[in-house]
């Protein structure tokens, strides 16, 4: 097998957004049901509204640098998603924009930096950390295992697989966690036994991104 070189382009990022949107549409009932158990049932509606708006405005995101694209995505999500997810994703994308600057494409190391910046911004804005039963657990799991593979000089395909599997493990770990932040905290059992819906939609994003990138690998 020829070694696979990750070069994330603007075009692929838009394909990824569409792939995530498709997955989100499909899982409406599942996410809403998860959120009704631990939260207030609006996570899917708000995410859907924000990402639908992004897809509608897709032409604005074409042929711009990653920095400009992420900033636009961040501002759109912040103003349309609202709630906790909006400001957290908005803060994440805006920080990520600073990391990628005027690059036209991202390699594996830069993708890791971008995801790390995204994660740091979410943790700072939400005053939350891994283990709090949030989307942070998914992203943190993915970034950590991705970084480990990068440090081992693994091939890009392996790095991407690690991103996805680490994110999946992170998402699954939220099931047995007690919530410290957000509305799941108000549950008597702090949401134990249920996946965090925000962790699940974060996983859908990482899964969709990795799948789009890997689909180029033949």
């Amino acid at each position, binding site marked *: 097998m020829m070694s696979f070189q990750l070069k994330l382009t603007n075009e692929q990022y838009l394909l990824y957004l569409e792939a995530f949107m498709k997955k989100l549409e499909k899982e409406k009932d599942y996410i809403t049901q998860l959120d009704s158990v631990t939260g*207030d*049932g609006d996570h*899917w*509606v708000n995410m859907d509204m924000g990402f639908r708006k992004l897809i509608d405005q897709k032409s604005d995101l074409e042929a711009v640098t990653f920095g400009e694209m992420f900033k636009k995505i961040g501002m759109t999500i912040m*103003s349309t998603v609202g709630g*906790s997810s*909006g*400001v957290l994703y*908005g803060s994440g994308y805006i920080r990520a924009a600073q990391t990628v600057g005027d690059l036209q494409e991202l390699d594996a190391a830069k993708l890791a930096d971008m995801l790390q910046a995204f994660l740091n911004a979410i943790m700072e804005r939400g005053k939350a950390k891994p283990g709090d039963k949030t989307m942070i657990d998914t992203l943190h799991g993915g970034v950590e295992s991705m970084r480990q593979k990068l440090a081992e000089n693994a091939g890009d395909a392996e790095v991407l697989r690690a991103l996805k599997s680490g994110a999946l493990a992170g998402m699954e770990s939220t099931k047995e966690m007690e919530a410290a932040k957000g509305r799941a905290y108000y549950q008597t059992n702090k949401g134990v036994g249920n996946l965090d819906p925000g962790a699940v939609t974060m996983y859908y994003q990482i899964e969709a991104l990795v799948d789009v990138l890997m689909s180029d690998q033949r």
Partner: protein
Amino acid sequence: MKKIINHPDHVVTEMLEGIALAHPEVVYFKEAEVIARKEKSIKVGLVSGGGSGHEPSHAGYVGKGMLDAAVAGNVFASPSPDRVLKGIQEANGGKGVLLIIKNYSGDIMNFQMAQELAEMEGIEVDHVVVKDDVAVPDSTYSTGRRGIAGTVFVHKVAGAKAETGASLQEVKQVAEKTIANIRSMGMAMSSCVLPGVGTPSFTLGADEIEIGMGIHGEPGIEKSPVLPAKEIAKKLVEPILNDFEKMSGEVAVMVNGLGATPLMELYILFKEVTELLKQHDISIYRAYVGNFMTALEMSGASLTLLNLDEELKALLDAPCQTPAMKG
């Protein structure tokens, strides 16, 4: 889902348009989803807001003696920082702006980010966080207590203080004193339906009620079969009184409907609350019975007590003229 709406995506915008049409003393800023006073004055500006679905909170409290601007988010979701920033800009009369935030993760993050944005524009901004729901233990490491109907007392008291020409720090101080002296407790009898979701957020059995439930359907502390009003009153009054470290003996009482509870039932609950308070030698200085902070069509009610001193009494009595509170 049966609702008087045109499209689930448009409920917030169309509601705010309706409010501005019904109450010409306020002005609506589309896109930012802000309702602000038409007539501006040089005083500390007060801004509150949060997810929609709690009407008349908060747009109904914009007007003389209460808020200067209210910022609406999507149903049950905090408004974004850019919307809150618009609210701050509209409320700014040159003496600074105080944000009255209900204690939810989303509201805190969005309002604080808006505060940072406004400060970058040179507007002096400070904030207070209302956490009055005794159904949730107070806590510093986590989200902690929710902000519910007691927030309306903060609007009233801080709003009256701001009208006196007080400074931002003085208004903040009296808002914090109010927050320290309010306790609330709710109960629900049936769920609400988010327009964008279309199905009930939670289910309660036909004969089941939930004590301590939050205004977004967050679970409470106890499910029980339907109880007589007398017993329900007890389940609301006792935890509130137990939570106060000390009381003056005089309170303002708010019996708040969650959206689908008839006023008849709210007055029955109020009567029972009055009798319980009498047994504890607590007198009622002022009473508020009605729908002040709802949860869409949830049925049920919340009780709020504001422990009073002379300053708070005077500020409660000060005139106000808003769509949802006059006097």
